[in-house]
């Protein structure tokens, strides 16, 4: 028997048993029953019952206060606070159940989780690999950007990539699925985003230096909290002539040549647009990310990066994209100065 926080336990009169205004996703999901050999601490149920009532009354007060508040962020904070001690919500959070991002309490939990781990990793990689300031001057992410390559049939790569890791070319040969998890979108509105993938490490032999190439560019992509990714469904629709978003550079994988530096960085940035962009004016051949940001008044809200170097699958992918065979450089770096 599940002797747990069933709403029947609390006579069902409090705010936490009322689902007329609250989402069903705040209900507890998938309760695992105790093993037959498990023994609960004694008297835990009595204390829990009273504790539940006390917290529920407090939550009711916070809900009432939230009704009087006008500001979106403050209201969101209060709504999150009102549910943060709800045992059903806590159970869902702690037991790996699917969390509904539209609920303030889950959204704030996910935001905190992101800030405490994934964001730190991302910023470390962006700074250590000098993605900032080599591309953008700096960035303060507010959106969790996750990338994976869904075409792969190899289980090893069937996952979200970790910023900074080395990826093989057979993995990156198709456009990635990009998931943008917004945290400050309180009303689940649709917002316009631009996504660019650039490689600042393409050799430039004329100057004995590097140039930046644009490998993928998408604009006017409308995403919300629930519709949050650019995936195969959207790519297919685009192929079939839909105009949900505009592409100013179709995907071209980064294909490093033999001995062309230690590695090449794939820098993916996400920008929030104030308005629709006319993509015909964008110069995709000689792309400068800083002027792109300035020209269209974009605000960088997130990003990620990975690294690539020459591997045995590069030549196959080159031929798939109809590219000529890549150059081969001498293994030893020569002391010729910059031109």
């Amino acid at each position, binding site marked *: 028997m599940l002797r747990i926080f069933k709403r029947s336990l609390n006579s069902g009169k409090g705010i936490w048993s009322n689902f007329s205004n609250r989402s069903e996703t705040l209900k507890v999901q998938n309760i695992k029953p105790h093993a037959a050999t498990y023994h609960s601490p004694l008297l835990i149920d009595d204390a829990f019952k009273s504790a539940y009532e006390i917290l529920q009354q407090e939550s009711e007060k916070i809900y009432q206060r939230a009704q009087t508040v006008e500001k979106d962020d403050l209201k969101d904070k209060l709504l999150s606070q009102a549910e943060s001690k709800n045992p059903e919500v806590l159970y869902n959070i702690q037991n790996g159940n699917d969390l509904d991002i539209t609920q303030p309490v889950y959204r704030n939990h996910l935001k905190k989780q992101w800030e405490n781990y994934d964001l730190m990793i991302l910023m470390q990689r962006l700074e250590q690999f*000098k993605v900032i300031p080599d591309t953008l001057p700096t960035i303060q992410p507010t959106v969790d950007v996750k990338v994976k390559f869904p075409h792969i*049939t190899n289980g090893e790569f069937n996952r979200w990539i970790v910023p900074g890791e080395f990826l093989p070319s057979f993995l990156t040969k198709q456009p990635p699925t990009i998931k943008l998890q917004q945290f400050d979108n309180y009303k689940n509105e649709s917002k316009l985003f631009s996504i660019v993938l650039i490689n600042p490490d393409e050799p430039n032999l004329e100057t004995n230096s590097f140039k930046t190439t644009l490998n993928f560019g998408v604009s006017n992509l409308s995403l919300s909290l629930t519709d949050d990714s650019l995936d*195969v469904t959207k790519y*297919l629709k685009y192929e079939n002539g839909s105009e949900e978003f505009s592409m100013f550079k179709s995907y071209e994988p980064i294909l490093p040549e033999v001995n062309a530096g230690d590695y090449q960085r794939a820098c993916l940035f996400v920008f929030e647009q104030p308005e629709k962009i006319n993509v015909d004016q964008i110069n995709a051949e000689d792309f400068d990310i800083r002027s792109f940001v300035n020209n269209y008044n974009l605000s960088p809200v997130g990003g990620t990066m990975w690294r690539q170097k020459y591997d045995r699958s590069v030549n196959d992918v080159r*031929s798939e994209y109809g590219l000529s065979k890549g150059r081969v450089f001498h293994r030893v770096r020569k*002391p010729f100065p*910059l031109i």
Partner: protein
Amino acid sequence: MFSVNSITKGLQKTSITQVRTATKRAAGSRTNKNDSAGRRLGPKVFEGNFVSPGQIIMRQRGTKIHPGENCGIGKDHTIFALEPGFVKFYYDPFHPLRKYVGVALKKDYTLPKDHFDPRLRRFGYVEITDEAEALKEESRMSRKEYLQQAELTKKKQMRAHHDQALSTTFQEQLSQFVELSDDEATLAIERLVNNYKLIRLDHSIEDANQQSTFNYILSLKSLLANNKITQEELTTLKEKYIKLAEKLDRDVTVDFSTKQLTKYLNSEQRSALRNDIKEKLNGFKNKVISSEDKKHIEQLISTPLAFNKVERADLTSDYLPSVLPESVEETVFDPEKGIPEGGKVITKYDNTLRKTIKIGRTKEAFLNQL
């Protein structure tokens, strides 16, 4: 008594300077002994001078000057250049008390660079123009890679073999579901094999279908890029394939766990099927299960497209436990009244009675021995 003045006057007049000549002074003084030759410290090149990689810029004790951009530091704090360029001495606003020396890659480049500006970087590698040499360099392997070649080839062959086996089973079964021409059948089987691989990695059936379509469109684009087909051909092939895919997806899909083709069901139909099966299974709860029942239950649980691997394991442990629970009264007997054929007596501890009790179970209770 003499006054001091008179003594000094006397000294000036006589000008006696006393020199110790015969006393023993050959050992020298204790404190003066540790002199050494100069270590030739200091800057070796100066502001604006050109340096090559490895050239020493400064020898010092401790870090009088810190290594800045494109400079390295040795174990005795010797600063040397890492890149060819022009020496610049500067202060860094992030460490206001330090002096730095750096190598600017261009003559008129000032250091330190603005914090938010991109770095100026030198490529430095030279292209190999000789084709044979280029090929040699390209095919060069590290020892680690070389040693892994055998295993990699073997894995590749196994994958190909596996794919081939899948293709043949699908080829045999495909005609049961749809009527297709030979060309279409090849495409369809390729598609179904890819779908199977994706579904195995937890993609949904619908996602896998779309991914396979997208794969085909990209392969067509690749043919176009290599001038094997024209744009018009691409459009017609694409439309043809999309029609084929629609037809195929409507009728047939792959069941991951049995690796067999099966009729496609959409998500609503699948959940209805799941509920239906669960209801049927509930009919077997708390009942004696015969060997036919057992087969039937196994069949229900492994119905294509109904449950995933974890759910199947859960259902099996729920509905086909190795020993039926004691709540199934027909399987329990009183051992004092005699033991039926194949029955077993089990001794167990009863928590409520606080003593050991003996319970007889008939052979029907032991499902694992059916």
